[in-house]
């Protein structure tokens, strides 16, 4: 079974802190994604990566950055957390182009106070 692991399920951080959300996949997938999930808005793409050290902005990249130094790991970074970044963050991975199944992690609940 494909496994996408988000190491932190629940985090509480203070405004202005730097926050790292880590994601690891075990299926040698080229593509990795970070989505943000908010009630009534569904999932919105923050950033994605199609290869090591390659990244592209999604629909809502402001306030976020990413890092992909190894194929299996994709990190989401909040340089200076703000309360409006309180949300559920979902990591996902897939191989190939459109139509291939995307596998999701269980999510990281981030609360910024």
């Amino acid at each position, binding site marked *: 079974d494909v496994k996408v692991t988000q190491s932190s399920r629940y985090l509480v951080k203070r405004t202005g802190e730097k926050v790292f959300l880590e994601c690891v996949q075990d299926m040698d997938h080229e593509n990795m*994604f970070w989505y943000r999930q908010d009630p*009534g808005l569904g*999932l919105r793409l923050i950033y994605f990566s199609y290869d090591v050290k390659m990244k592209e902005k999604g629909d809502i990249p402001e306030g976020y950055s990413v890092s992909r130094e190894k194929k299996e790991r994709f990190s989401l970074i909040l340089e200076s957390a703000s309360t409006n970044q309180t949300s559920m963050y979902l990591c996902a991975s897939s191989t190939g*182009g*459109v139509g291939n*199944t995307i596998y999701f992690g269980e*999510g990281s609940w981030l609360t910024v106070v």
Partner: protein
Amino acid sequence: AQSVTQPDIHITVSEGASLELRCNYSYGATPYLFWYVQSPGQGLQLLLKYFSGDTLVQGIKGFEAEFKRSQSSFNLRKPSVHWSDAAEYFCAVGIVGGYNKLIFGAGTRLAVHP
């Protein structure tokens, strides 16, 4: 611009009743369409997907969906709902040439009464 609309935010059905969740999309080309389910506290799991061919597609857990190009719809159905189907359901469209990016609808939360 590509978009996905799920008109129903919440739906409540009785166990054993039939279910239909609505999804409308806006996409310029032939769409790649997906339904995902998210159980409480969990990530998303793929239920089914449509690319081409037979417009009625079967998925896991007894779900099916029908693609209707004339209505730009991809509604999800199940003939008899079980209490374990209570979850949030997301419809999504895949972007061709976009490294497998998906655009999601806002989701429909399903509650099942015993």
